């Protein structure tokens, strides 16, 4: 079962690299925010898998919960920041 967990964790890392493309080359700032949100939601599962691999699940569950909360707060704070800022539209269509 540990081998299966390791394979799933490596596949999740691959999917995180796929989402990292949107973070790096996203045309707008909000696209990058979407990519960061997707990577964060994969990281929660990845932390639990790491906990099962190291057999310290009781510690890694708390880390995963804190990470989910931090991800939520980061996305909310960044989008609230772009509520107030008007320069997003002019920068975003440079192509």
């Amino acid at each position: 079962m540990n081998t299966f967990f390791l394979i799933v964790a490596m596949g999740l890392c691959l999917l995180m690299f796929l989402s990292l493309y949107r973070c790096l080359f996203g045309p707008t700032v909000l696209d990058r925010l979407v990519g960061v949100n997707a990577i964060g939601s994969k990281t929660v599962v990845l932390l639990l898998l790491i906990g099962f691999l190291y057999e310290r699940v009781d510690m890694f569950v708390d880390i995963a919960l804190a990470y989910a909360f931090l991800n939520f707060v980061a996305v909310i704070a960044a989008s609230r920041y772009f509520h107030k800022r008007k320069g997003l539209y002019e920068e975003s269509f440079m192509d």
Partner: protein
Amino acid sequence: MDILVIILLAFGFLFFLGGAVGIIRMPDFYSRLHPAGKLDTLGIMAMVGGLALYNLHHFSLGTVLLSIKMMLIVFFVFMSSPTATHSIVDAGMRAGLRPWTRKPKNNTIQPRETGKE
């Protein structure tokens, strides 16, 4: 029980894969939010549910509490992910990003210029 755990993990991984492909392939910011919000939520539910089921191998009070804590992560993600998606869409609408429309054919009416002043 191991078979059910493997099925749940593969199911969640399939949904994560669909979400990642949708984030890359979708043409617009608003349509990119749709796979990012929905499929990641269902992927987290399936995978963390499978891991919580695997955690119940040694059945005792500690592992039951640990599985309940994992389901609390799922519950929190179910609350927070639509809120985050709504907040990003709200920021995009207020910043004035126009939604994507299909490219017109040759003989149709030309629509207005899309944002490239």
